[in-house]
């Protein structure tokens, strides 16, 4: 058979594409359940990181998650709980959610050593791609218990440092405060001096600004919800919680 005839070439290409397509479709569909489970478990791990918990083993992520996260729900901008279906907050896709005019406001309620923590998901932009995170707030409604950040494509060693503990630990015990009725998250900035400012990552100005903007934007709609828990600390930039009287 003439290998250079048009018929042969077209047939060859067509058959090859069909075979390759079929093989890829088979691989993709058979691995899909595993991949989705991995993604869900990865999200669970990230939420657990915000309250400083890790699963003892990879196959116990879901059990650990269910142990600490007692319930999840959606709230509205007035602070009322609107949906308490199990996993309703877990199933919110933050990527599309933040773009909506009236985003859903998911909250995960966790109990750590008898104390209640409220975990709020965040989503924003870094230098090269999206960044996201979770912040856990104490039941006083203004002290940050822990924060977790991750990214899809920040520079390793620079912007990517936001996913490491040294940066995330800087958020612990900082407090949210009120300004004109809106909640103001602590600022991420260079040379943080004041008690409620957080040192940015050296060499990663734009990623740090992205974290700052994400933090402020994503926490703002929760003002009313947090107010029902005791509210934001009303003294500007206070570093001693006991003086707040709340």
């Amino acid at each position, binding site marked *: 058979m003439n290998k250079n005839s048009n018929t042969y070439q077209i047939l*060859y290409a067509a058959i090859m594409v069909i075979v390759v397509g079929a093989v890829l479709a088979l691989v*993709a569909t058979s691995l899909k359940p595993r*991949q989705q489970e991995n993604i869900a478990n*990865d999200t669970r791990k990230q939420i657990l990181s915000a309250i400083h918990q890790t699963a003892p083993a990879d196959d116990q992520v879901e059990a650990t998650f269910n142990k600490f996260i007692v319930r999840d729900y959606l709230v509205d901008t007035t602070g009322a709980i609107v949906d308490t279906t199990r996993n309703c907050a877990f199933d919110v896709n933050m990527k599309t959610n933040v773009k909506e005019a009236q985003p859903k406001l998911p909250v995960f309620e966790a109990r750590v050593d008898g104390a209640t923590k409220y975990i709020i998901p965040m989503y924003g932009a870094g230098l090269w791609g999206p960044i996201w995170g979770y912040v856990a707030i104490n039941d006083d409604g203004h002290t940050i218990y822990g924060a977790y950040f991750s990214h899809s494509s920040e520079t390793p060693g620079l912007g990517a440092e936001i996913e490491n503990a040294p940066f995330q630990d800087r958020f612990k015990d900082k407090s949210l405060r009120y300004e004109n009725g809106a909640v103001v998250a602590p600022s991420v900035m260079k040379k943080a001096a004041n008690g409620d400012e957080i040192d940015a990552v050296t060499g990663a100005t734009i990623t740090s600004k992205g974290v700052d903007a994400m933090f402020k934007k994503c926490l703002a709609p929760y003002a009313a919800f947090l107010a029902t828990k005791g509210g934001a600390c009303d003294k500007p930039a206070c570093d001693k919680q006991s003086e707040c009287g709340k």
Partner: protein
Amino acid sequence: MLSKRNKEVLFNPLSKDNPVLVQILGICSALAVTVKLEPAIVMGLSVIVVLACSNVIISLMRKTIPTSIRIIVQLVVVAALVIMVQQFLQAFSYDVSKQLSVFVGLIITNCILMGRLEAFALSNKPWPSFLDGVGNGLGYMIVLVIVAFFRELLGSGTLFGLQVIPQWCYEHGYMNNGLMILPPMALITAACIIWVHRSRNKDLQENNK
């Protein structure tokens, strides 16, 4: 199994005919994934798998491939294998796939792959093609690991994410070299390796008479 020629096919790419050091192929990905050792190793392993498999497949098909569309055929085979590697990583090694993110997909554009398919697999039997793929993949991986070793050590003071430069060095004024983390230093590190490699292998040096 390993005749003299097959041994050459397998071991030459490690040093004398190294794809990165001598043929200067695959430099772009060597630059992107060598900030830390772990992704460099996984990337190297992925390239070995894709290169060996695609070499075997193309070698099996070599007598049927129409010459005028051979590049497209090679590309489809490589792309399919890369997507499969990506899917398997996502299913069985999710953390690593997160680290490598887009770079696994970029194996498709790695010139070493097309180069070996074109130069070797199209005209050789499956077994030597397999060895050629493994050899070239290893040659690529060795360079990635050496570059990543120096970049992670000098850039972050760590190896495999573990701190190796003791704290007292920092206390006495030592600082991590931030420049090592940036892409240009991968090229400079690779150039230094090429320099050392050439000065040790006189037969690689061009005659300047």
